[in-house]
């Protein structure tokens, strides 16, 4: 009841007005708590809302064209004069291809860098490397894409002798750089969480620091490292501006890293601005959005489950 005294200076405790005030105070508290509860539920609401709206806008396309139209053909050509085609297999393939390429570069580099940070780096090296990684994480994707055009593009065409470097390889290199900060910092956390006694036991048995790192630290941090990689993978699949600018945007089914490709994200970014609302083509873009959402959701969820289980094991 302190609050009444403090806040309003009302000294009517025990009187009828005072009792009423206490009642209204309780109500106020209840309402405030309900307000924050609603606020707390917001994340669930938004996540559910995103799924619901994507589904709601994708459904007319499924109804009109059938599910097989989307997943049975690699030809994406919605603006064809003779027959519009909505196969998204080549788009999914492109997204997976650049992601795979990015991971092939980022996993060895990222895990090595994390191991360096956790096991070798002096305090001074850490103080340089940690902020550098934070800055790298903050560079906007559109700037990275721009560098793909002006830096990586001529480099690829010179090294591999292709006419232009706006290819899947370009996207992979850029996405690798973009997913490095995630992979490095989470892998480092995982390596640091390995109990010191493990390492001490290994060193006491005569193993070198390198052997300890490779045969003790990394295997015991493996689940954390895998979760970090999955999270980096989720980022790479969903990244838009970088691949839009750097991969050439030619929707074809290819497995050649030196050819232009067009990812799911880039397709949405290019075409949504040009189609009228609520047409078949518009709905079809939401089908791509839905597939993309589902893919990143599953990847993130798996990574999350690994991390949670891992952290519970720590306790």
């Amino acid at each position, binding site marked *: 009841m302190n609050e009444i005294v403090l806040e309003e200076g009302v000294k009517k405790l025990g009187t009828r007005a005072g009792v009423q005030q206490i009642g209204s105070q309780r109500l106020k508290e209840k309402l405030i708590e309900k307000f924050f509860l609603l606020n707390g539920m917001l994340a669930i609401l938004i996540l559910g809302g995103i799924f619901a709206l994507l589904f709601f806008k994708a459904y007319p396309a499924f109804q009109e064209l059938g599910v097989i139209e989307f997943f049975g053909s690699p030809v994406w050509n919605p603006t064809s004069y003779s027959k519009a085609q909505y196969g998204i297999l080549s788009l999914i393939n492109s997204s997976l291809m650049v992601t795979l390429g990015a991971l092939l570069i980022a996993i060895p580099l990222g895990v090595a860098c994390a191991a360096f940070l956790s096991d070798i780096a002096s305090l001074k090296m850490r103080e340089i490397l940690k902020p550098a990684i934070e800055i790298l994480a903050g560079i906007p994707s*559109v700037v990275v894409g721009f560098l793909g055009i002006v830096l990586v593009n001529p480099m690829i065409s010179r090294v591999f002798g292709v006419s232009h470097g706006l290819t899947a390889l370009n996207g992979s290199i850029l996405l690798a750089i973009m997913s490095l900060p995630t992979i490095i910092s989470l892998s480092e956390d995982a390596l640091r969480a390995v109990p010191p006694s493990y390492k001490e036991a290994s060193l006491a048995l005569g193993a070198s620091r390198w052997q300890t790192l490779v045969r003790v630290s990394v295997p015991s941090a493996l689940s954390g490292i895998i979760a970090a990689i999955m999270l980096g993978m989720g980022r790479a699949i969903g990244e838009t501006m970088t691949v839009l600018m750097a991969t050439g945007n030619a929707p074809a089914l290819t497995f050649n890293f030196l050819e232009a490709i067009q990812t799911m994200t880039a397709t949405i970014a290019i075409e949504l601005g040009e189609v009228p609302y609520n047409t078949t083509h518009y709905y079809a873009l939401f089908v791509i959005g839905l597939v993309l959402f589902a893919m990143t959701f599953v990847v993130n969820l798996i990574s999350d489950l690994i991390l949670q289980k891992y952290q519970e094991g720590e306790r």
Partner: protein
Amino acid sequence: MKKKCAERIGFALLSSAAVLVILFLGIILWDIIGNGLGVISWPFLTQSPREGMTEGGIFPAILGTFLVSLITVVFAVPLGMGAAIYLNEYALAGRMTRLTRLAIRNLSGVPSIVYGLFGVVLFVQMMKFGTSVLSAGLTLALLTLPLTITASEEALKTVPKSYREGALALGATQWYAIRTNVLPYAVPGMLTGVILGLARAAGETAPILFTGAAFFLPHLPKSLFDQFMALPYHLYILATQHHDIAKVRPIAYGTALVLLGLILLLSTSAIYFRYRYRQRMRS
């Protein structure tokens, strides 16, 4: 001997990975700063683009990015703080709380282009805000929400439990205790989250592509329902969509440098605030 040798090679490999990562950052900064610095001038920062964007400055894009980030913060910060207060002060450990946290973590992994799709349907079409700075700001607010919630909760966690208990023991209600004994100490820490959210919002392109960003506007936005120009979108246009890409390359570099400078300024100040705040909480 063999063991020693393997160790030396292995450590050299790890070190070179670290050097490579720093090298990447170095090349990025070197290229953008080296090519962009010569373009930056007072007129470049204060004038509108002219002659089909081949001349003049980028002022409307700077202003647009500032406006849309402001709207983002106005919506994301109260919501983020509210959710954080609920999670840290009111919520009991249980299935619902676990689910909420799972949702927050998952939201931060939703691709930005998907937020764009969501924004088009919800704000542009259903709420009829049209393609406007308001729709774009709201879309970005949703995108930065997980970040603001997490940062606000971190700040609330640093306030010692005894502060709350002291107030409650003296008969204060829970909200009164939060308001007088928790929030004043947590707000400076929450500021870090606000700045990081700003930096994220200022650099995003995909969510504003269809919710309000414009290719070129002859005048500045006059209301919340006008379209706007933004730095990241401007860079995208200059780099890929312009009819004379070679000619506007210097302007593209200048735009990239301004955008990068703005974001680095925001994120380093956030890191600085966090550092100062942690030191104060410790003492």
